[in-house]
């Protein structure tokens, strides 16, 4: 699933380059041009995809930090 999510992110980035609607001024519902509607769809799809990413691609190693002790190092607070 993890790879499917990352593959979907790549697909979304490709869909973002929607050259196929570049010169198309068709209006959806008489209000939104198709070139804008497609990008609103991309915004919605991004939210769904990132929701799935937080489930299947979450870096659980980061959470281990919370249970470990905080150590101050050279680069720490100064």
């Amino acid at each position, binding site marked *: 699933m993890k790879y499917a999510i990352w593959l979907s992110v790549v697909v979304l980035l490709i869909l973002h*380059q929607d050259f196929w609607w570049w010169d198309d001024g068709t209006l959806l519902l008489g*209000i939104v041009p198709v070139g804008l509607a497609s990008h*609103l769809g*991309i915004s919605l799809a991004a939210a769904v995809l*990132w929701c799935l990413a937080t489930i299947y691609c979450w870096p659980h190693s980061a959470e281990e930090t919370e249970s470990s002790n905080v150590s101050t*190092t050279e680069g*720490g607070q100064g």
Partner: protein
Amino acid sequence: MTQLAIIGVYLALLLGLGLFSSRLFRGTSEDYMLASHSIGPFLLLMSLFGTTMTAFALVGSTGEAFREGIGVYGLMASSSGIVHSLCFLLIGVKIWSFGYKHGYTTQIQFFRDRLGSNGIGLLLFPIIVGLVIPYLLIGVIASGAVINGATIGTFPETFAATRGGVPHWLAALVICSVVLIYVFFGGMRGTAWANTFQTSVFMILGVVTFVVIANGIGGQEGLWANMQAATAKVAEAHPDRLTRSEMSKFMFTTYLLIPLSVGMFPHVFQHWLTARSAQTFKLPVIVHPLFIMLVWAPCVMVGVWATSATLNGQLIVSPGAATTNKELTILVAKLAGPVLGGLLSAGILAAIMSSLDSQFLCIGSIFTNDIVLHYWDKKRFTEKQIVMWARLFVVAIVAVTYGLSLFEPRSVFAMGIWCFSGYTGLFPLVFAALYWKRLTVAGAYACVLTVAGMWLWLFAESGFGANANYTFQLPAFGQQLEMMPVLPITVASVVALVAVSLVTSPPPDETVRRFFPDLKS
């Protein structure tokens, strides 16, 4: 006077909130600069969103859509929805983890520690700080212009030279003072609370403005019919604005790199470190693209409608306004009246100040941690003294920024995209630092110096920002490929980082093991 009164009430509310949050201050430097890692999901979402969205999200998006059409949304909004969340997930969570574990407050501390080099900190310091200064100036100058524009005619005798409007210098002074007060007393907690309030304000006012303008332009019964009527006027008069026919396709693609700058913004870095836990990032990762859509989509539609909107047979926004980003304020002034005008001005100021506060605090934190505490013995300072240093630096940065803004360096506005390009050019460095064990300090030096060199060369080519539409031209396939300068800068950055890292000795195991615990002995 109505607009001034609304702005005054808004600023007073903001001050009250900032001062109230200071009552929760725990007296430590960690609390002042990082809110003791106590920020929960909602505050993190709002403060990250408020910090990454500037006034451009409201007035710039409308103005760009007026000139370029609907393509502006794909160029800047949907791309940011994908890439910002990607940065939060891939960079932010890991940075939080290392920051929490090793006690970092600034980016420079992280790079110095990760690469085991003081020199890299010294090299990054002027670049990171230098790229924030124009960004700060844009905010301060814009805030002065917003208040001046909203109050024209209010004091015809006192401020005759500025057509009765509060002069820029005074307006900017008030904004700087308000931000300074709540950052000075509230630190990061005050900033996060203020950002949350301000983000709510500009999001709500953006939607309200959209509804009022749609109804004003359409002249029909009901919002839906009005939106259809407003778009129909554009389809008739300026059909090109409903497509991207005027926009270069390759340039559109290369613009996708610009939002990567978020991964290297020092103020975003500091906000990441305020999170209560890694789980706190989940809400911002998911909701950020939706918030961008909620703010940008109405503004882009309003900008497109403005090209063809008429009142009493006359165009509401004349084509002469096409280079001033005043389309939204003109529409509000003519279609809504002073109350909404005042609220919109407050919304624009909210967007400006929600970026300014984080940047002021961040620069103050960098000077405190990376200069004072790093080069003097930290143990000689008490927590109270460290907080005092941070506050003094915040005051100094605000004063310097305000002083520079008095010269009104208009060319600074053209530098916005250049600041973003510089941070994007450095993105490979943070990515490699987190995910590539083989990164060496020499590779990091090569990356930073290459970015600095490429940036200066291309910036000079653009007439030091004078040519606002500058694009890099590359001859390929028998034609000139038009691209944003960020592409050659980033490609050169990656090549330098990888090539020099591979030909230099690998970093010591003990350094790498601290950041890659799974490394085999």
